[in-house]
């Protein structure tokens, strides 16, 4: 990535994550480095299984067994979360970085009311009950739900309301960084748009940084400053949103761009990307994308390409450049 003038808020360096499975070790994240500046919105895109969610979970160290973090650093305002003990993590989580998961229904405790779940995290970080309750009301107004719904149970809310509830929860402690892990995938299109607009407004109002993870590139265009593309556990390209859309460099990115129709845009022939994502237990040699790449050369199967800066703010990991 290009040099940052000041230290980034989140600085992930060479992160490696393995999963132990019955068939062997899966290297789900293979030496990924990325950074998010204060107040910046960074989009992270890739297919299911490309490792993007894993990175998000690894930052907060909430990956479940059989996951194992096997290398790298995750520096947040100078502190390495990979070195924190339980007590430090408890203080760090939610107050500096919070996360919104894909399925709000599954993120919410079914036997507690929404209020109880909102308030407990605030009380845990020092607020009194009254303060916490007041803030819960404010948060709900912020996301556009009547505060009286605070006493509902998760199953009594609609899908869109649940997702907004989870967003409100994520903002409860005014974190510096908000990670959105496929926040709208489980919702229908109309609600999706609604929520995204609301998030954009919130972000402007509150000024927090956002790491937006999704497989849907079209969402990132309007929302992010910079976009990073992941494939098979590795970062392959990174550029400001507009630049990426106008000039995608990596063949995978090009394929992604051509894979979805645009309702409003010009008519375009849809092409997919032939083949399927690689088996991460024994991934392809050299560049992991080479078996599916229309522009593969001999060197691609022999050596893994390094991330090169091609133009200001635009990096790509490909032997073509």
């Amino acid at each position: 990535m290009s040099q940052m003038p000041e230290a980034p808020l989140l600085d992930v360096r060479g992160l490696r994550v393995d999963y132990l499975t019955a068939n062997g070790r899966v290297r789900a994240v293979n030496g990924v480095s990325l950074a998010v500046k204060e107040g910046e919105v960074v989009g992270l895109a890739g297919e299911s299984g490309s490792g993007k969610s894993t990175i998000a979970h690894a930052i907060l160290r909430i990956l479940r067994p059989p996951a194992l973090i096997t290398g790298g650093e995750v520096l947040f305002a100078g502190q390495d979360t990979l070195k924190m003990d339980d007590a430090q993590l408890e203080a760090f989580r939610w107050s500096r970085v919070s996360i919104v998961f894909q399925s709000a229904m599954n993120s919410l405790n079914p036997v507690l009311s929404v209020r109880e779940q909102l308030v407990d995290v605030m009380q845990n970080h020092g607020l009194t009950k009254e303060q916490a309750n007041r803030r819960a009301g404010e948060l709900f107004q912020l996301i556009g739900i009547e505060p009286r719904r605070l006493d509902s149970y998760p199953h009594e809310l609609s899908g869109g309301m649940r997702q907004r509830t989870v967003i409100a929860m994520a903002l409860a402690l005014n974190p510096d960084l908000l990670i959105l892990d496929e926040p709208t995938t489980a919702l229908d299109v109309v609600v999706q748009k609604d929520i995204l607009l609301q998030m954009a407004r919130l972000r402007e109002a509150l000024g927090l940084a956002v790491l937006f993870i999704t497989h849907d590139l079209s969402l990132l265009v309007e929302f992010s400053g910079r976009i990073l593309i992941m494939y098979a556990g590795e970062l392959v390209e990174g550029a400001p949103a507009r630049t990426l859309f106008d000039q995608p460099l990596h063949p995978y990115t090009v394929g992604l761009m051509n894979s979805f129709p645009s309702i409003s845009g010009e008519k375009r022939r849809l092409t997919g990307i032939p083949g399927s994502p690689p088996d991460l237990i024994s991934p392809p040699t050299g560049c992991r994308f080479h078996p599916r790449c229309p522009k593969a050369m001999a060197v691609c199967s022999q050596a893994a390409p390094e991330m090169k800066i091609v133009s200001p703010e635009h990096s790509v990991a490909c032997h073509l450049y």
Partner: protein
Amino acid sequence: MKYILRHLALYALALWVSLTINFLLPRLMPGSPVSALIGRMRGKFTPQQIEALKKAYGFTDAPLIQQYFDYLSHVIRGDFGLSISAYPARVSSIISTALLWTVLLGAVTLLLAFLLGSFLGVLVAWRRGGMLDGILPSLFNFIGSFPYFFLAMLALFFLAFLLKWFPMSHAYSDDLSPGWTWDFAGSVGTHLILPAGTIILVSIGGWLISMRSTMIAVLAEDYIVMAEAKGLPERIVMFRYAMRNAMLPNFTQFGMSVGFILGGQILTEIVFSYPGLGFYLVRAVTAHDYPLMQALFLMITLAILMANFAVDLLYVRLDPRVRTE
């Protein structure tokens, strides 16, 4: 709500089936049990009295359906007839005290075993693969392999007979009379320890393992990851998020386990000569006292259905999703 009503319907059906079994069995089986009674009493009754007896026990010459409805109407009124072995005592008077003792023992053991077992199950599941998890499930599994009454016999022999630490039989000391006094309550308490203790020991394993496996399933859920991501302290995640949810399937299990544990309780009552429903049931069987036997069976079934119903009510309170069904 629908949940409760559905269960009530099942209980009503089960009750009806029990009643009908009670009615049909003596009439289907070879050799009328009334003739067994009469055989015992021969020489003590005149033929007219025998006829009256037959009628009193419902063995009239009326068509089966008529007998059935007569039987049902008697039962509803709480009239179970006269005991044969304790003739002419009324069955209802015998079972009313027995019911109290069984419910006392049953409630104490069930509650304690459930609470202890569940709590241990939560701990063991939280630190999976840890030291406690290696020892406790297997240990309680081993203890639970013993038949209830065998442990009762062991306890009776070693702790009561040899060491004389606890009383050997009955629900309270023979030289006390029942009443609301501390002495009496204390006596009841000490007499409860061995029977309750053995049943609890044997049944704890079941609750532990059951809670452990529901906890393990719940711990894999996303809202637990969310709770951890929120930076909540360990005990809140373990109890408020995990246990509150893991408890629920165990409640539905509870109903079925009650019947099973009560079976063990019956046998334990015999070992300790504890005057509950089980104790009288077996005595009734030995004496071929069919009216008493049937009434006891009904009472036991009713007690179980009521325990189930109580658990259903509690469950509706604990799981908000069921309320809006």
